[in-house]
Each structure stands twice: as structure tokens, then as C-alpha cells.
């Protein structure tokens, strides 16, 4: 018993010693690093992850840390004082929430938009052509709940098309809708072009005219958070709205503004 305890104490002491020396050596060799915290909409995950190493290379000594989540959650977090340098939302409304609380420095930039597409099985076996072709029991579809941004966009598109869809489920986010189509539990789902692109060949996207109706398109905004590291925040904003950011956004299926 006492032997085992002594072993544990020795192991702990050794671990502690290692940690201390580990910290010491890195402090001695490198210049102090800075961390840029970016709160970004979940739909930006792939693009931002891809931009991170290139930004870090262009800004030596900087590490980028992401906090991905729903735009509403992120903007609420920023309003409540979450320590972020940059806020990147997937809707104008959520950015305005943070702005009205006085948490955004300067004017946020609207740099990209995303539009809806109907995701179907590869080859489009149910011959989906547009929103009207989804109505009725022969085609089952899944959409976002009206309370979340992609659901509000879906409602706007429905209004523009003059149809009322009969979904089997209203999901809490757009990737859940995509998952229903990918797992073939529904025939079709209303998602964004970027989601279809991200799914590779597992789903096929069908364009429809009402995707560009007012309220149906989704705006992407980025702004510097008050109290953050202004210089790093501006560098990130210039990077994602510059040529490298543009190329990555376009490749993912976003439309540039």
C-alpha cells in the first residue's frame, strides 16, 4: 500500500518536473506567441480551417484558435463578453445583435453569400426539379426548423415559390438535413450549395429559381470584437476578404460579394 503510494508520488513529481522544464525550454528559445481567437459560424469550418495554416505562415508567431458554432450562440457569447478577437456570422441579424450591444469595432464587412439548393440522391432518382416537385407523399423531404437561419431562408423561398412543403422533419441545423439525405432516410433536403459541395459525390444539388429571393440568401459578415487584439483581428479580416480567402470561399461554393 505505502509502496504503491510512493510510486504514485514519484510519478507525479517526475511529471511535474517534465512539465516545468518543458515550459522553461520553449520560453527560452522562442519569441512570445500571440493567439488570435476567431468565433466563426459552423458553416465556415472547412474554409477557415484551410486558411489557418496560411495565415499563421504569413504572420509568424501567431496561432489561430477557432470557436465554431451557430451564429446566434456565437453572437450571444460575444455580447456576454466571451474573449474573442473576431466574430464571423452567417447572417446579418446575428451580427447586428453584437453591434447593437456595442461589441463590434467599426463596420463589419459583408464578404460572401450562400444560397439554397435541393440536395437529392446521386442521379436524382425522384426527378426533383424545384420546390413544387417536393410537395406530396411521393417525395419525402427534410428542412431546417423556421427558428434557425437556414429554416428562415427556406420559408422565404417557399413564399417566393408560392408552395408549402410537407417535410417529415424540421432539423436544428443544416448539416442534420444533409445527413438525412446522405443516409437516404429522406429523398430530398433543403441545404446550402456549400453543404452539397462538402458532401462530395454523396448527394447531388438541384438549383431552383427562388433560392435568390429576398431573405432566402444568407450573408456572411466578419467584424472585429471590441476589447480584442485589433491589429490581429484586422489582419484576419483582410486575409479572409483578400485573394486567398476569396479563392477558398469560391472553392467551397460561396458566392463572393
Amino acid at each position: 500500500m505505502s509502496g504503491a503510494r510512493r510510486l504514485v508520488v514519484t510519478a507525479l513529481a517526475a511529471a511535474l518536473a517534465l512539465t516545468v522544464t518543458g515550459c522553461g525550454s520553449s520560453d527560452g528559445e522562442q519569441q512570445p506567441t500571440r493567439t488570435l481567437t476567431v468565433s466563426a459560424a459552423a458553416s465556415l469550418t472547412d474554409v477557415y480551417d484551410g486558411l489557418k495554416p496560411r495565415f499563421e505562415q504569413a504572420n509568424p508567431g501567431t496561432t489561430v484558435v477557432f470557436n465554431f458554432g451557430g451564429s446566434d450562440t456565437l453572437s450571444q457569447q460575444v455580447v456576454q463578453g466571451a474573449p474573442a478577437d473576431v466574430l464571423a456570422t452567417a447572417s446579418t441579424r446575428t451580427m447586428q445583435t453584437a453591434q447593437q450591444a456595442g461589441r463590434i469595432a467599426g463596420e463589419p464587412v459583408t464578404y460572401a453569400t450562400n444560397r439554397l439548393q435541393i440536395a437529392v440522391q446521386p442521379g436524382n432518382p425522384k426527378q426533383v426539379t424545384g420546390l413544387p416537385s417536393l410537395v406530396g407523399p411521393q417525395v419525402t423531404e427534410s428542412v431546417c426548423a423556421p427558428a434557425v437561419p437556414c429554416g428562415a431562408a427556406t420559408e422565404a423561398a417557399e413564399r417566393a415559390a408560392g408552395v408549402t412543403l410537407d417535410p417529415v422533419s424540421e432539423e436544428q441545423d443544416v448539416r442534420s438535413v444533409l445527413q438525412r439525405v446522405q443516409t437516404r432516410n429522406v429523398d430530398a433536403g433543403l441545404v446550402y450549395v456549400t453543404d452539397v459541395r462538402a458532401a462530395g459525390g454523396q448527394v447531388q444539388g438541384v438549383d431552383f429559381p427562388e433560392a435568390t429571393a429576398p431573405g432566402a440568401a444568407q450573408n456572411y459578415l466578419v467584424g472585429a470584437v471590441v476589447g480584442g487584439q485589433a491589429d490581429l483581428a484586422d489582419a484576419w479580416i483582410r486575409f479572409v476578404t483578400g485573394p486567398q480567402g476569396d479563392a477558398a470561399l469560391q472553392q467551397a461554393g460561396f458566392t463572393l460579394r
Partner: protein
Amino acid sequence: MRTRRGGATTLALPWPVWVPAVVGFGLIAVPVAGLVLRTNWADFGALITTPAALDALWLSLQTGLVSTALCLLLGTPLALVLARSDLPGLAVLRSIVLLPLVLPPVVGGLTLLFLLGRTGPIGQLLDAWFGITVPFSTEAVVLAQTFVAMPFLVVSLEGALRTAGERYEVVAATLGAPPLTALRRVTLPVVLPGLVSGSVLAFARALGEFGATIAFAGNLQGTTQTLPLLIYIQSQNDLDGAVAMSLVLVVVAVLVIVATRTRDVSGVR
């Protein structure tokens, strides 16, 4: 056993128990009190009587009760097997039964979806033979709730069965009672308090179920949108509504727990 209600003989708790007990109570009670403070009382009535809220409450109560009944029907025999049989590998069996306690509910829901979905091994057959689609139905909600709630019933009942021991059954057997009669007339009445508290736990768990339900059953008002699902969706853009409905859920849970607790105590004494 000595109780406060018994009067004369009250055992004093050693003082080191009190401090962590108060901290632990605060950790649970203070956030719930925060819920009350955050509630928009002016619009409370309107917020909890929207068609979506009433549909969700009704669906939650219905599916919660059916799930609890299913847990009783399947979980009681399961607890009996775990507590009283001499099957080989009982320990492994028990740990499998307890898995839903550890598994993130959303994973449970996804596995149900992979099994019973349109392309799943069982779902495919159900679709081909009977034209039945399980996901996105109220039955799927019940299945998801039963999956996560059953271990709570099994654990409390198995505990009660082990504590009670087998001596009364032995007596019943020597008096000539067949096993089924002994089970019905002796075993089940003896462990009734455990059965009741296990059912309450299972019902409470089913009532609060979110992850497995939204993954497997989806979210559609009146069919699969239970109160926790509606609360989550509402919290995305209408916090007042979400908070008000959370309070309703809390009240329902407290009512159920208090009602069954008092009954269970009077049943024992």
C-alpha cells in the same frame, strides 16, 4: 431505521457532511432559480400556450408515459434476470444494459437510425415487408426514450431485488407456491418501492430526452417535436419562449417526483 419524522431518535449528521451537501444542492438549485429570474412573466401565459408549446407538452407526456410503460414491461424481467439468474457472463450483460447511461444520447439515436432507417438492416426489411418507416414517427420518439430511460429502471430495481434478498421466496416455495405465483405475490410487492422509484427516474429521463430523439425521430410539430426539442429550437431565436417552456418542464418533473415520493413512503411504512 431512524427518521426525523419518527421524533425522539434523530441521528446527528457529522458536520463535514453539511458543507459539500450545501454546495452540491446550490450547484443544482441556483441555476434553476436563475431560470425563474430570467422568465418573462408578463408574457408567460402566452408563451406556454402557443399551439407548438401545447402540442409539444402533450406529446412529451404521452410518449414519456408509453416509454415508461415499455421500460416496466421489458426492464422488470431484465432486472430479475440480472439479480436472480445464474446465467454465465452476467457481468458483461449488465454492463451492456448500462451502456445508454454512458453513451452520448445523440450516438444512441444515430445507431437506432442506422439500424431502423430506410437503408438500415432492419429498417430495409420493415419497409419491404410491411411498408413501415420507423424514423420521423411518434413510435421512433418512444423507442429513443425507452433506449435511454430503461437502464434507470433496471438499476434501481436490481438494487431493490438484491437488498430484499430471496428469503421470502424461499418461504413461499416451501409453502408450495409455484415460481410465477411467488414472483407475483411475494417478489414484486416486496420491491414495489424500487419499482416505483425506478419508474419515476425512467419517466423523468424520458421527459428530458433530447439527443437520441432529434437524431432518430427528427423534429416535427405534433408528431416528434417533444418539449426538449421545441425548447432547443426556440432557444435559437426566442429565448423567452424557451425559458418559459423549460420552466413548464421543471414543474411537470417536480410534480411527478413529489407525487410518487409521498406515495412510495406511505406504501413502505
